[in-house]
């Protein structure tokens, strides 16, 4: 008995009187551990706002979801409130990310990255630059989601957090103005772009070392350790500038008049990024199909980007986005269904909108003689898809469940399936699964080109160039020509549109809609343009050769919903936090 007690007492004291030891650290551990400091920054990287596929597009006039429990579907149906998770998630994740960045920025100067002072300085510069770039990114998404006119009528941004907080910090602070937020954002962008190289590429000799480090006694190998290709896809100077361009376009937009950012500034920011790629000539010829099997193939060099890509995630071999979006006969769930509204937005092959008699649009053969991007991005009735190029029938008399509304949660609700972002050489059938490489696009050049076109047109008119060698017209011509429209008639419709800023604006917005569809961009574009949010999502119910266009889903957005709501919970808690008007 005594032996038993003795055994108990000696063998298992852990947790009885004192807790079993855990490796407990706090933020101060950054002061001694470089890798740990990087891991704090890592939390901000994890919290980045990017998705691998369409998310909020199903709450626009571009698409609907066939997943009836989809939160964005509910939102578009009228369920959007200040408590709707998907719209308040950004509040949580952007601000939390900023906290990690501030924690990091407050300590980065003292983190022992290297015992060699020169190398240490380079590390500090790079990581500080990354953190500032990421902070600007978070602010951009905060402004996009929450910037707006408050109940007082003032154009507000969000509270600017430039210092880390803890449980004792007074969090009941007022929102800064939108202009103040933009100022802070652009300051972060500019500092980041000064601290960071344009891209993380390896040097091959000491002469290439930038002047600011040349005097620090480091060689090109040291430089490569810090700024070389091993850091590829982290925040770079080019990326930070692209975020600046995105944010200034937002700020210059009609919904944010009073932001202090003019169209010309937005155009200049975009041009800065475009010029990094060699101007208009740098536009990638296959930039509108960067995700396809023919472009990506099995070529997965991790430390290089396709010319179209400014920022991307890592390569992942999977079949998940096809599994989500292929039609049911190809073992998919048919999730994102493009609308008739979007299909109608694709012009005819000759460049004229299908509403224009000159387009030659044939109501009885609506998918022929159209903008090639229609077939590139959308699966229409009778087109082929998948490893065996199977014909997909979306008609009401289809033999398989691919037909419209054949099976809830699997079949299309609009008569269309998604093709963009999917690889045709993937088979999601679990028995014969074929996985292929994909990556998440974060920012690509076409968006920046279109940002320039939009801003330059507003600032200087269709053919005005500001201080740059290309105009909005030039950019749009290049994009339409790349897409393959109007090539036979010198894009007569574009020539017609360049006559006025207004017609050009309409054309630019339409090109933006087509080029950037299903990339989670239109939801906020409609809002910053103060465009019609209520256009009913429509579909095509095809029986034999007869086309019956049907209403699929209303878009029950109120006018005040051009600005998103701050989370209800925080509005209740903090008297100084002003809600956007209407919510």
């Amino acid at each position, binding site marked *: *008995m005594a032996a*038993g*007690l*003795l055994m*108990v*007492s000696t063998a*298992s004291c852990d*947790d*009885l*009187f*004192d*807790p*079993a030891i*855990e490796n407990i650290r*706090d*933020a101060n551990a950054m002061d001694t551990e470089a*890798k*740990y400091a990087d891991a*704090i920054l890592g*939390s901000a*990287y*994890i*919290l980045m706002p990017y998705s691998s596929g369409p998310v909020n597009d199903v709450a626009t006039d571009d698409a609907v979801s066939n997943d*009836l429990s989809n939160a964005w579907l509910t939102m*578009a*149906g*009228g*369920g*959007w*409130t200040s408590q709707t998770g998907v719209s308040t998630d950004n*509040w*949580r*994740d952007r*601000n*939390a990310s900023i*906290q990690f960045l501030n924690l990091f920025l407050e300590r980065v100067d003292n983190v022992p990255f290297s015992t060699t002072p020169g190398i240490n300085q380079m590390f500090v510069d790079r990581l500080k630059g990354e953190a500032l770039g990421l902070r600007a990114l978070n602010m951009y998404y905060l402004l996009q989601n929450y910037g707006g006119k408050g109940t007082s009528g003032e154009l507000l941004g969000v509270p600017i957090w430039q210092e880390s*907080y803890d*449980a004792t910090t007074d969090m009941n602070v007022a929102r800064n103005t939108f202009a103040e937020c933009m100022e802070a954002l652009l300051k972060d962008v500019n500092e980041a772009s000064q601290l960071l190289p344009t891209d993380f590429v390896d040097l091959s000799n000491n002469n290439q070392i930038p002047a600011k480090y040349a005097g620090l006694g480091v060689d090109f190998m040291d430089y490569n350790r810090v700024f070389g*290709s*091993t*850091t*590829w*896809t*982290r925040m770079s100077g080019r990326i930070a500038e692209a975020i600046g361009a995105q944010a200034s376009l937002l700020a210059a937009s009609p919904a944010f008049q009073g932001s202090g950012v003019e169209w010309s500034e937005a155009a200049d920011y975009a041009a800065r990024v475009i010029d990094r790629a060699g101007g208009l000539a740098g536009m990638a010829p296959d930039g509108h199909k960067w995700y396809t099997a023919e472009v990506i193939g099995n070529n997965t060099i*991790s*430390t290089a980007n396709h010319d179209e890509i400014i920022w991307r995630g*890592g390569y992942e071999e999977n079949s998940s986005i096809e599994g989500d979006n292929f039609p*049911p*006969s190809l*073992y998919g769930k048919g999730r994102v269904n493009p609308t008739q509204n979007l299909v109608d937005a694709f012009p005819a092959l000759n460049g004229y909108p299908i509403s224009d008699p000159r387009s030659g649009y044939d109501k009885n053969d609506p998918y022929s003689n159209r903008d090639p991007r229609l077939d590139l991005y959308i699966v229409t009735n009778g087109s082929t898809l998948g490893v065996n190029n199977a014909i997909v029938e979306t008609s*009401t008399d289809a033999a398989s469940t691919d037909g419209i*509304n054949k099976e*809830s*949660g699997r079949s299309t609700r609009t008569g269309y399936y998604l093709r963009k972002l999917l690889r045709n050489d993937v088979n999601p059938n679990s*028995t014969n699964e074929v996985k292929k490489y994909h990556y998440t696009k974060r920012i690509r050049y076409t968006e920046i080109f279109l940002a320039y076109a939009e801003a330059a047109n507003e600032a200087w008119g269709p053919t005005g160039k500001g201080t740059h060698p290309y105009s909005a017209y030039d950019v749009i011509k290049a994009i339409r020509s790349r897409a393959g429209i109007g090539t036979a008639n010198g894009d007569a419709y574009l020539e017609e549109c360049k006559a006025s800023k207004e017609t050009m604006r309409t054309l630019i917005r339409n090109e933006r809609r087509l080029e950037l569809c299903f990339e989670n961009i239109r939801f906020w574009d409609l809002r910053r343009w103060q465009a019609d949010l209520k256009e009913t999502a429509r579909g095509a119910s095809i029986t034999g050769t007869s086309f019956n266009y049907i209403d699929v889903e*209303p878009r*029950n957005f109120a006018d005040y919903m051009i600005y998103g709501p701050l*989370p209800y919970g*925080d509005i209740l*808690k903090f008297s100084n936090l002003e809600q956007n008007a209407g919510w």
Partner: protein
Amino acid sequence: MISIYKKYLPAAMLASMMAVAPAVTAQEEADTTATPMVQLAYRQVAADEVLGGAETINIADLMKKNYINDLNGTTLKGYVPGYNGNSLWGSDANDGRLLVLIDGVPRDMNNIPPIEVESVTFLKGAQAVLLYGSRAAEGAVYITTKRGHDGDLKIDAHASTGWAVAKRLPEYLNSASYMTLYNEARVNDGLDPLYSAEDIYNTASGVNPFRYPDVDMYSKDYVRRTFNRTDGDLEISGGNQRARFYTNINYYRYGDYLKVGESKNNYTDRFSVRGNVDVDIVDAVSAYVNAAATFYGSHSAVCDNDKFGNYWSAANTFRPNRVSPFIPISMINPGALAALELVNNSSNLQNGMFPGGTISDPNNIFSEYNFAGDSKFTSRQFQFDAGVNVDLASVTKGLTFNAKFGIDYATSYTTSYNNKYATFVPVWQNFNGKDEIVSISQEGKDEHSGVQNISGSTSRQTINFSAQFDYARRWADVHNFHAMVVAAGWQRTFSGEYHKTSSVNLGFEADYNYDKRYYAEFGLTGVHSSRLAPGHRQGWSPSGTIGWRLSQEEWLKDSEAVNELMISASASKLKTDLYLTDYYMYSANYTNGGWYSWAPGGQAAAYPKRGANENLTFIDRTEFSANIRGDFFNNALSLNASFFTHKLSGLPINNSTKFPTFFSTYYPASSFVPWLNWDANRRTGYDFGITGRKQFGDVYLELGVNATYYKTKATKRDEIHEDAYQNAVGKPVDAIWGYRCLGFFKTDEEAASVDQSALGSAELKAGDLRYEDVNKDGVVDSKDRVYLGRGGWYGDPFTLGVNLTAKYKGFTLFVHCTGSYGAKSYKTGSYYRPAGENKYSSYALDRWTPANANSATLPRLTTTNANNNNRDSDFWLYSRDRFEIAKVQLTYDFPTHLFSGKVVKGISLFLSGDDLVMFGKNRKIMETTVGGSPQYRFYNFGAQVTF
């Protein structure tokens, strides 16, 4: 070892002080009493001297007239006041917070056969659990196993066998009805009907069930209505003055309802042995050893597809018209050679049938249970505990020492064979009125790995020890004094968990009574929790109780009306760490987790799990209770009643009203919010038990009623609401919240006139549900949710147990009924609230249509998610009030004179029924299990033979 010594030092010092203290002239030794003893914490007390807070069921006696197979909340409900089948006095017993002790060691109630049990004591009052420390603060159940007695060898053999008979099966619509109503739902949504009249006709006519399936998951082909359970055990006990033993060998096995594929072989069995030995080593030293081993196993068919879960959950989702699980090969057109070849390559043909599927439904639960393999779950438990008693009268008169030690080991694992299989998708055509399969495609592949997989291996170890000094003396014939010091601790280790569950405490108790009339008891326990910050790890739990035994007063002593009467009152404040679910909750504790990567690299990120709060401390249970207990009219009537009120305060929360939402994120799971002692709950109620007994000639009758009532109130919460009616404070802890339903919209115009869009349905029409705009802001949203009723999460608010015993000659009739009142529940799930692609139950027949707008009990059908209609509202609320006949047993004991001089010394037979009848308005809902194995009545027949 040094730290242990330090912790035990105070105990030893206290004990030695006490040993010296009573220099008063001790005249007599503490007397022993003949009344039954009740097990309290670390000591046994005569039943009529218990000062409230504890109730005992004598299981060994009860089993003579009420044979039960398992100890659990259902089989123990209604036998004693204060226990409602779920918790003691409505305390928060959920998540395993009710401490179950078997012979003093924390163990599982479901791992002890009732036949091995002598008694079960419910320690409901704070004063009763005080000495068990922190982890007993929500009450404890103490199970005492049987022991051997000085006397002849006694052998009891029990055998019983019985049938479980399903009470009520869910009712689903057949294919044709489903298709018709689904079409109606489509039209309601503005879509075209999906199923053609021809398809529905062909399905309804049953012309070809392989092409037009109509699968009834509850058909007798798949689900038996009964299954058998058989129990047997052998008890052997005996001993002499020096050594006594009790052993039990126990086995049971029961089957399953299912008869689909491998599931027809499903069974569960359990074998266990126990040996309890008591030895008097020398006059002053006695010891005991208990050992038990359990082998538990269950065999079942494998379902490797998470979509189905098991047969019962599949039965709730698998629509009848989707797939024909098996299709005759003869249906294939003889000319379709490719199809025939494909099918004949299958290794899973059965009775000339091949497994059917579709691209959308390549698998189903039938194919899974037939071809996916089988698994066996095995669980073993070994339990060992031992103790020693030393009478230290030679050192100090009245002093004894007792030490106990227990060690348990439990393991479990699953072995399985997991196979993959192909199903075949037929393409049908009709030739001259005859359906034929013209081609076939294959889904999946046949794969038999032949490898036995082992999964779900777990192990658990429990170590328990206690040591105590008792000092009991009586002076001057009237001063009765007892004191004890207990040092105790236990610890449980789980496989795969770094931290252990621990409890350690040092207890002191002193009780005094004057002439068995005036009682006073004082207890003080020092609890220790390693979950708190250094400097905050100790807490003191005091308790004081007084009692007045009126029946011992001169003026009552000889009363025939009052044979026994005790009133008592108790106040306590317990410290517990039960709600501190983790260690280091006081520290910020940055952790590594989540992965961030860049093109050539990646690593785990770092983030805090919480903010720091070094002042995090124990949770308090502050309690006042009073008890009255008595026997009257020559013990023909017994009464026992208690009042209690207790408050649990300082419950740890992450106070969300102080910090913005962005202090915490989901991925990575970071948080800067500290834990804070904040929330408080009050529970108040009463219980009572009345038993009357009387002999009428040859007939003996006994009637008992036990009742427990409790109410709960949230007294402190961290909350902000615009409207006061949304505050949780002042509402029950087990509050059900929801919308207040105003019925169906009568017209589309009415539906268009209100704004319920925040609830998430795009278009509302007549036949959808309308809710009250409680705050009158013109919009129905989550701010209009109100308190709707009590959920009874800690047991139904008012529970009743009524039991009747009638004896006539050798016959004993025992009837036990339970009543449960005051709790409400939502009708949940697609069975009651169909939407989208859900299977339709018979409730769908009563959906709203323009024709039956006044009698409908369901909103109009929809193929959408029914966000508006399926919100939790009082439309779906029902009362769980019910009265049940839980047990009826007729026992016949053969007259003892038959056995004089025989080897067999007694035979007893019984016939019983469990869970026989339920009365209640919503009986149908409560008796139907949706998505799970059906509830059953159990009819049992058994015999006991004593040698």
